[in-house]
């Protein structure tokens, strides 16, 4: 154990004596992690968005709040028999109430919804899933021509049209394309940056080895174990990777907090727009996981690069 700590001490001495390149390696590693993390977060976010878009009902129809059970069944049959839809889901008034409360959490606004009269002005929501938007448009055309639907089922008090698309095909395809673009570009950039970082760490360790060649020779001659000679260089590489990872992760977390907590306009608006997307909760556990992951990747890159360098340049 003593020898291990002495090897650690030597690693820090090597870093200190070669501080210029050490700082450069660490900064490149930080920058690489920063860019890769931004791509990673963007990819993760856009994937959640794609999943959300894909899971979201394609068409929302507001039905009358006082619709009877018989009429509900009839509506389902009416829509299903067209053969244009994949699934029909007619919710109840309780769902409408909860949905409204979620969007407008003001008790004064929710209060009237608790009364018996609520069904006279609150709609029942029906979600219609289909394979394409053309089919949904065909369904709308069909319903508009159906007298019973137009007269007894649709909520004419609150709405002026048959239904709303959750996402238009254009919007959905933009989101999917963006996700695909981020994944391709992100992968290329990640590989490129990690290769560049690895090369820089390799060069740094190589130069450190050359700078300490005489010391290595002496260590070898006075009976230092092979690992004792090599370990400080590997540890140096690991330190560059880990410090780079910690710095970039900290920067990302601090930036995120600054954006979310101090910005009074942009982020809340964005959140309002994408508010229904099931974003993961940013808690301490997630932050720790993020640190562990990036530090692990950083350590791995640093260890591999320096290991290759010592294999090539430390012969004893």
């Amino acid at each position, binding site marked *: 154990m003593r020898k291990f700590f002495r090897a650690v001490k030597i690693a820090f001495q090597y870093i200190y004596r070669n501080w210029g390149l050490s700082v450069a390696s660490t900064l490149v590693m930080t920058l690489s992690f920063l860019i890769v993390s931004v791509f990673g977060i963007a990819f993760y976010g856009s994937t959640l968005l794609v999943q959300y878009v894909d899971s979201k009902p394609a068409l929302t129809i507001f039905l009358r709040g006082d619709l009877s059970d018989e009429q509900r069944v009839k509506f389902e049959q009416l829509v299903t028999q067209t053969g244009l839809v994949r699934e029909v889901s007619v919710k109840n008034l309780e769902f409408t109430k909860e949905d409204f409360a979620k969007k407008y959490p003001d008790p004064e606004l929710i209060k009237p919804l608790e009364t018996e009269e609520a069904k006279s002005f609150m709609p029942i929501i029906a979600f219609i899933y289909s394979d394409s938007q053309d089919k949904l448009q065909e369904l709308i055309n069909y319903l508009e021509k159906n007298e019973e639907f137009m007269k007894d089922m649709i909520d004419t008090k609150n709405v002026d049209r048959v239904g709303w698309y959750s996402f238009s095909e254009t919007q959905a395809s933009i989101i999917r394309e963006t996700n695909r673009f981020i994944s391709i570009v992100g992968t290329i950039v990640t590989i490129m940056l990690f290769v560049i970082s690895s090369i820089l760490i390799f060069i740094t360790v190589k130069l450190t080895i050359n700078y300490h060649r*005489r010391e290595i020779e002496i260590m070898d001659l006075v*009976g230092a174990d092979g690992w004792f000679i090599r370990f400080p260089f590997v540890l140096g590489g690991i330190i560059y990777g880990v410090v780079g990872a910690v710095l970039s992760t900290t920067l990302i977390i601090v930036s995120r907090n600054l954006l979310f907590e101090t910005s009074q306009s942009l982020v809340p608006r964005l959140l309002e727009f994408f508010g229904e997307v099931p974003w993961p909760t940013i808690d301490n556990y997630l932050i720790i996981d993020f640190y562990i992951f990036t530090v692990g990747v950083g350590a791995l890159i640093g260890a591999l690069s320096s290991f290759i360098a010592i294999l090539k340049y430390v012969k004893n």
Partner: protein
Amino acid sequence: MLTFQQVTKKYSNGRVALDNVSFHIDEGEFVFLVGSSGAGKSTAIRLIIRQETPTSGDILFEGIKVNKLKGDKLARYRRDIGIVFQDFKLLSARTVAENVAFVLEVSGKPYSFIKKAVDYILDLVGLSDKRNAFPATLSGGEQQRVAIARAIVTEPKMLIADEPTGNLDRSNAWDIIQLFNKINNWGTTVVIATHDTEIVDSLNKRVIRFENGRLVRDNVGGYHF
């Protein structure tokens, strides 16, 4: 303790540095390896410290084949022998005390032990007042004393020196040889490669002489005996 068994060292350019050399050194002996430049004495030293391996034959240290040692076993062997070089091979970024302590650090000795051992050895070689000096600020003789201190601080079974007086003036050279003699008197085997006739003559110890890679003499006496 140390045995050369029909050792031959031939380099890739065809030069034969040692040609079928055999000798044995007992524990506690003081031996000079002598010969002119290129005779093979430095090659013998490099083979003993396993910087090189013989083309044929074996080198045995306490019955173990030195030329077959690798990895941790080689490191342990090198900790069993002390080595002093003509060019001192001191770490320029470390102080005198740190240079001496370094060999104890690599062998995992505790700091309390290292401190005591370094103080004792520096006192022995007369460098207590230079413990915090860097090698570049020392004279040649002082640097060689540091190198000797580093070589003996681990209490090696054998001390090997390659031209230890080659870079020193007479007075310093003589001091250094006296130090080797003192170390030998404590029971440590000492092997010195040198072409310094005056020193060899003055000590009257066992002399192994090489000429063109061949062992031509092995007995007690002066350089030209």
